[in-house]
């Protein structure tokens, strides 16, 4: 109590001191505006590009607002590449890939925190060490493995090699350890088994952490590029990021309006998820740094 009463007036004086410094505040807003312009303008450029007709895209100097906004680019992009198929492929690989990751993270973390096993801390290090092995280093042997399994150009070929999860296990393990142990003990007394405890008690309590990790997982699966590029070689198995790359390559004489419409197809679902759930995403990213 004493500490609080002492520190309070000092807090006020600190903020008051800053409030009086109009120059610093002005500078702060200028800086913020600059940040927003630098981050925002390229995004703006992508969006208006998608609404410009072919002549306007090639007008010098470029226009800031589409003079004759058109929706034709979206139709042209949709027709020049099988975006419907790309969406289905990306949805399937994202849903399955993330479900695996979330399931493994939730269950592995529970086991590491609440179950006894000889040398389990050592096992946890084995799991954690994989964070240091970039997926990139393993692409060649993994491609050989996947082709031996006959999984090239298949959903399981895209999904399974990336199904295991270390970061999520780490994140949820951190979170589970902060749960009030009394609640868990009470459930143990009730005689409910571990799986019931996991389902009925730990899952609801850990929901914020699980949602955070789930969103990170979904976004990274959606954007995954290198592995799907390697493991698929037919048009009908491409996912969205690969599809947009081939739209760029195949549209030899690039119509930027069409290509920008295509990139919007890729980016838009993620933007919607982000607008809806950004707090969880940001929490999930920050949790790894500060607590770890």
């Amino acid at each position: 109590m004493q500490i609080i009463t002492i520190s309070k007036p000092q807090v006020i004086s600190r903020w008051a001191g800053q409030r009086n410094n109009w120059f610093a505040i002005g500078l702060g807003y200028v800086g913020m505006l600059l940040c927003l312009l630098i981050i925002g303008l390229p995004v703006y450029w992508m969006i208006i590009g998608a609404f410009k007709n072919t002549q306007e895209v090639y007008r010098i100097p470029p226009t800031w607002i589409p003079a004759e906004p058109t929706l034709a680019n979206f139709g042209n992009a949709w027709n020049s590449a099988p975006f419907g198929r790309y969406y289905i492929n990306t949805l399937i690989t994202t849903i399955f890939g993330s479900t695996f990751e979330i399931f493994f993270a939730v269950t592995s973390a529970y086991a590491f925190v609440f179950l006894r096993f000889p040398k389990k801390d050592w096992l946890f290090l084995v799991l954690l060490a994989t964070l240091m092995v970039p997926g990139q280093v393993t692409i060649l042997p993994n491609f050989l493995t996947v082709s031996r399994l006959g999984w090239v150009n298949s959903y399981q070929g895209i999904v399974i090699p990336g199904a295991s999860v270390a970061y999520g296990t780490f994140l949820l393990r951190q979170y589970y350890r902060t749960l009030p142990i009394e609640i868990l003990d009470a459930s143990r007394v009730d005689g409910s088994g571990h799986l019931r405890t996991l389902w009925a008690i730990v899952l609801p309590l850990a929901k914020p952490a699980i949602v955070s990790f789930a969103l990170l997982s979904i976004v990274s699966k959606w954007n995954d590029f290198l592995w799907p590029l390697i493991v698929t070689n037919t048009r009908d198995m491409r996912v969205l990021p690969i599809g947009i790359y081939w739209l760029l390559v195949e549209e030899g004489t690039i119509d930027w309006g069409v290509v920008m419409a295509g990139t919007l197809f890729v980016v838009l679902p993620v933007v919607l998820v982000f607008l809806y759930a950004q707090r969880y995403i940001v929490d999930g990213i920050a949790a790894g740094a500060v607590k770890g």
Partner: protein
Amino acid sequence: MQLSNSLPKSEVINTRRRQTSASERREWLLFALLVGPNLFLFGLFTYWPLIYNTYLSFVRWDMLAPVKIWVGLGNYRFLFASPGFAKILSNTVVFTFASVLLTCALGLLIALLLNQPLAGRNAARSIVFSPVMLSGAAIGIVWIYIFDPRYGLLDIFIRFVGLRSPNWLLDTNWAMPAVIIVYVWKNVGYAVVIYLAGLQAIPRELYEAALVDGASAWARFRRVTIPGLSPVIFFLVLTTILAGFQTFDVIKVMTDGGPVDATTTLIYYLYQEGFVGFNAGRAGVAGVVLFVAMLAFTIVQMRYTERNVNYA
């Protein structure tokens, strides 16, 4: 009497021990069921490939022939003697060093700014962070359009200050800076989020104490903020180094490693040798070099963190 008394006692102890070990064994089984698949997949798709990749770096193989020819250190000797590979290593270092430095420095600047009590700072934080979430391939493509020397967004500004736009992605001198700009633009928001979390974890009393002592803004930054942020800074430097080494999508989409080899980094070279050139041995070497570099950075970082970082 004594005998008959002691016998049941020991029996009780024995059965109890057997019971706990039985329940413990049930826990072991459940543990194995829950963790097993996860670890198995890591074994199959992370640890085994790591070993196999090292093996591949010692053979000559076109990924089709039934036999792999053992060449020992031949691939290493060839690559480390070739100027092309030296260029690739230097590209990797330049790309990673520049993108880490810029991401971490600009990120800190922006985080300090958005930590101030400015109206709308929450919205600004989300906007700055949003590119992190977007597909690198899509972002790379948007930036090709932005860099276009005649119809691009950047040219408007370059012309405004009276200069002429370089032919960014077709110029061996400008392609690398262009790729770095895109990387930093896309990832600076990640650093901002991490820094902001770190800034909020610094106890406010430290600032108050410094103010009472009459410390200037710079002194507070130097003596409170930086030491308070040090664990976060080290975490960020490591994660951005690792991410920088692995950057593929932006480079593949924007420059395809070119022009000539101006933006060919190790990971791009690995892809190129393995999946276009079908030279498993050389791709293997690139993988080993990449892994050893990342491992070295991780170990150095962990050592240094233990010794020098101030966990406030």
